[in-house]
């Protein structure tokens, strides 16, 4: 039996690259991340603290015991949550990884040109990213402003670049932190339309604490990106963003906020 070369094989190098990026950005983050020497030290140190703790009475003893246990477990398993939150993988010889990166993809049932047109049109784009206002201030430069809680407003510049089937937005002057958003448009099979693969890389503000917080929120950020993509998809496919409005049940303030963040819902009474 012979096989005809599949459509996947005929994809461009850019698509190949995008797919390997997706796999990289979805790497499991639960493997060992402590180097072998340090594991030994952690195990021994932990055991010593545990012994010290056992010899003491009162809260100090308990605290030493707990710390010792945590260190010993860290040594035995090779997994360190602090390292994880800072993106350190000692086995890969790495230091602190200050970049937060995540990816999401969607398929828009529309031709390439329509999808591209949407992403490069500031008005359309602003319609999808509902918490932002966007003004074009140059050929490839937008001014973006976000409404902050309490009515304040923060504005910064974003530079737009297009190369092949990729569109890239890079934070410029005044941005609260460095970030790049990339979108790769890939033709979807048969009549499915256009795949949109979005990746974000950002250097969060607030030093190590900001970084740790960002990593901790990884899943939430990823989901938020997914919601933004869904908004784009809905606007292109249906001309509106689906919303469930009152009358509905008694939603808590937290749920309302989550609804706004994830579903792009307006506040409901």
């Amino acid at each position, binding site marked *: 039996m012979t096989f005809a070369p599949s459509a996947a094989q005929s994809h461009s190098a850019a698509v190949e690259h995008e797919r390997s990026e997706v796999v990289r950005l979805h790497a499991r983050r639960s493997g060992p991340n402590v180097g072998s020497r340090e594991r030994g030290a952690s195990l021994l140190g932990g055991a010593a603290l545990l012994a010290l703790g056992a010899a003491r009475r009162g809260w100090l003893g308990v605290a030493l015991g707990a710390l010792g246990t945590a260190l010993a477990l860290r040594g035995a398993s090779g997994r360190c949550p602090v390292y994880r939150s800072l993106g350190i993988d000692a086995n890969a010889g790495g230091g602190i990884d200050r970049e937060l990166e995540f990816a999401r993809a969607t398929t828009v*049932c529309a031709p390439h040109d329509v999808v591209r047109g949407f992403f490069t049109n500031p008005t359309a784009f602003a319609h999808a990213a509902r918490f932002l206002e966007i003004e074009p201030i140059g050929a490839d430069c937008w001014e973006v402003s976000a409404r902050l809680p309490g009515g304040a407003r923060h504005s910064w510049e974003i530079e737009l670049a297009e190369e092949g089937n990729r569109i890239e937005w890079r934070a410029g002057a005044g941005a609260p932190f460095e970030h790049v958003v990339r979108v790769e448009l890939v033709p979807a099979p048969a*009549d499915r339309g256009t795949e949109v693969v979005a990746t974000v890389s950002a250097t969060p503000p607030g030093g190590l604490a900001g970084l740790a917080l960002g990593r901790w929120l990884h899943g939430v950020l990823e989901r938020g990106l997914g919601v933004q993509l869904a908004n784009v998809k809905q606007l292109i*496919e249906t*001309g509106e963003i*689906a919303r*469930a409005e009152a*009358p509905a*049940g*008694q939603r808590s303030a937290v749920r309302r906020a989550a609804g706004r963040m994830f579903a792009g819902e307006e506040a409901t009474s």
Partner: protein
Amino acid sequence: MKAVCWYGKHEVRVEDVPDPEIVNPRDAIVRVTSTAICGSDLHLYGHFIPTMQKGDVLGHEFMGEVVEVGPSVGNLAVGDRVVVPFPIACGACWFCKRQLYSCCDNSNPNAYMAEALFGHSPAGIFGYSHLMGGYAGGQAEYVRVPFADVGPLKVDGGLSDEQVLFLSDILPTGWMAAEFCDIEPGDTIAVWGCGPVGQFAIRAAILMGAGRVIAIDRFAERLALARKHGAEPLHYEEVEVLDALRDLTGGRGPDACIDAVGLEAHGGMLSAYDEVATRTFMETDRPNALRQAILACRKGGTVSLAGVYGGFVDKLPLGAAVNKSLQLRMGQTHVHRYMRPLLERIERGEIDATDIITHRLPLAEAAHAYEIFQRKQEECIKVVLSPPGARGEGA
């Protein structure tokens, strides 16, 4: 306006809530003239479906009169009489284009919740938890209908509300369940559950050419109605269902089995297990009818699920399904696909959907209606509720 609101397990209240408004350009507002309680509503009433909030407006089987349309709704006008399908579908996404309307990509504002539970989000559904969109339902005086240019089916005044109301859900649902069975002349179809969905599955199977239909339930009035429409009744508390089905079919087993019961199935060999497992959250659904359907089905046959499952099941005889080469087909009904052809059958007099209705009550008596339907008291098979001001209309 008045609306039926969910307040927790076995508690609904008819309350005053704000009137709905047009939110998106493709919305319409419908003044409800008739609305029904569905077996699916009982899963909410029994609190089997997560993400309900106190005060949520229930109801996904309803019809009425258009009173307001959004600027992008070109095909409806104020005054039109419409039946509204229970899944909300955009009509434009890849799934809608393939007529997989209950899989619409664009109608669940809370897709992120469903994605966490199901991997992907199905269509939004009226009055069916926040997981399914958080839309207010149609057991109310008024309801907002999103994508109103796609779903609502116009019906003229010649037919009564009761004749067409069930196009919104249970008639297409029974129909799709039978269609999944790819019935060939002479086939024997077994149907678990003789509620409204089972009743319509039975009638659809016969219209599609089934040789025999065997109907399984434990309520005499439901079995009697099934018999009236050509099914052979089996009372599952009085008969060993698996043994009887095998030997009623010459040892082969039914060619296809329809589960029209769903996640609250009653009884069975593992019922004590299911009781413990659901209470300890090891499983959320009790798949007893489904287990039997898989075991009963003939080799190479089809098990069709109309019954709703929401979460996880346990002790499912997957080994039997694999080793007997069964085909399992399921889904929330793609109602839009079936509404017009079924309306035509109603107009031609081939289907009369009205004889399943046992109770006609004002919306204000919804709490009582839920209670008797849930407990299968007063020989209740189907309740139709009329909002105030709509009594007797269109009938």
